[in-house]
């Protein structure tokens, strides 16, 4: 049944996107502008240096490309839904979803697909190819496979973390701009996390695991990721997903509606 419902979500979202074509192109143009900005911000650093704590330009751009894939996927599937969740809660619309014979978290996370950033897959692909040619990485099937898996893990962790943040709106109303802050924090993961030291370094591998999200996949591709770290990445993904689910259930249990 969930697959059928999801197919319907997909269809309605797609026809929406087709109706607002001009909007689609404006957003595509805009997101390409920010892609240029991202890449440029890395290029400019490498005008003045050859490495950021051992990461060459190619490797750092591979991180950026990986972030584009994750961003493309999360915006496509989740962005509009999670962004609007806090205001749904504040305005009391949530009741409507809770009484539906479907899992509310499923509905609220996946109802609307946003097709405006699908160009990120294409641009990410091109950037990936360019970045890869700058590195001396020997591509093996097994490394590429692990890279793909870990990139997916990064994507899932991103969703879980974001979902937990917006779920905070059950207790703190009027934080409808929290997604903006989340976007900004996720943007940090375009840099190697080795720039951080001390407490922040611990944070970016545990509570806000930016290092696991984008750095691990690229390290795996280069063959420099240890088996222990790989295993850690997989476990962390499971923990985050379970955590997000548990947190949601607790929140809904404590929910007392806003308006009515």
């Amino acid at each position: 049944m969930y697959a059928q419902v999801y197919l319907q979500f997909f269809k309605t979202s797609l026809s929406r996107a087709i109706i607002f074509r001009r909007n689609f192109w404006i957003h595509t143009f805009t997101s390409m502008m920010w892609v240029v900005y991202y890449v440029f911000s890395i290029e400019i650093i490498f005008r003045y240096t050859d490495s950021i704590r051992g990461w060459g330009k190619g490797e750092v751009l591979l991180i950026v490309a990986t972030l584009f894939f994750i961003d493309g996927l999360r915006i496509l599937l989740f962005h509009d839904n999670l962004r609007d969740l806090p205001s749904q809660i504040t305005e009391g619309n949530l009741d409507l979803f809770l009484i539906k014979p479907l899992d509310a978290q499923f509905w609220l996370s996946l109802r609307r697909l946003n097709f405006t950033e699908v160009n990120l897959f294409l641009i990410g692909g091109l950037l990936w190819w360019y970045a890869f040619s700058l590195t001396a990485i020997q591509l093996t099937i097994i490394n590429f496979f692990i890279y793909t898996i870990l990139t997916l893990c990064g994507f899932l962790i991103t969703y879980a973390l974001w979902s937990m943040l917006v779920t905070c709106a059950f207790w703190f109303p009027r934080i409808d701009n929290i997604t903006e802050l989340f976007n900004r924090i996720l943007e940090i993961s375009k840099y190697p996390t080795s720039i951080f030291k001390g407490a922040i370094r611990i944070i970016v591998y545990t509570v806000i695991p930016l290092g696991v999200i984008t750095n691990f996949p690229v390290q795996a591709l280069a063959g420099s990721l240890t088996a222990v770290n790989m295993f850690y990445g997989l476990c962390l993904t499971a923990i985050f997903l379970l955590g997000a689910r548990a947190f949601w259930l607790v929140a809904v249990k404590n929910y007392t509606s806003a308006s009515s």
Partner: protein
Amino acid sequence: MLLIKKYYRIAKIYVARLLVFRLRMVIWTLNDAVAIFVLPLVWLAAFGDKTQIQGLTKPELVTYYIVLGIVFILATPHPEDHMNQEIKDGKVSIWLVRPFSYFKNYLMSDALYRLVQAIVVLLLVPLVFFFYRDYLIFTNITSLFLAIVAGSIGFLIFFQLSFALGCAAFWLDDAYGVHNLYWFCTLVFGGALVPLEFLPKVLQSIAAVLPFRYFHYFPVKLYLNQLTTPEIIQGFMVQLLWFALAFVIYKTVWALGTKRYSAVGG
């Protein structure tokens, strides 16, 4: 006297409204503050064994980003998004008949927002000090004073231009792209991404003729005491020129826009 009373009343209402949404404001502040905790670290890592990049030492570059971050938070007005919505929804109509202009309304609410936000920034300052304790540069009171003056003038120029940008909604159904382009220019040509002297030559010469450098970059350079006296005088002169130009731009765009406007939905 009556005038002061009027503005005081209005200011009180705005501040009260702001405080209702204080958590929102804290989030916006943190949103801008993230850069302070990242960009200097990226550059510190890029320094490697070098002692200077483009003539800037580690402390100079770190302090650049910290001061720029603070100026950015306190002197970046944002009327355009709200205006866009209000114009599209036809809510701007009421302002055409009120004895208090739409422009003043936004100028006051934005300026007060920045003042209240300054409290949040003050709370962040000790954290920044502790975090970067080895790299901070304190210049002198005169530099700080000049930076505050330049930042305030910059804010007013920026505000007038952002207001004109908000008026784009009179013509465009979807001003999203234009807003983003403007924002992009603010970051690249205003020195938030990197100090302008780090940009490739072509972009430097573009930045030289655009107003963006006078919003954030110029005050930071003043604070860092990296400008000669003629450069300082020239900087302020150009700021005043941009102020006048921005005034003409916003007045014109507003006049043309309201002439064109036919209240949607009543």
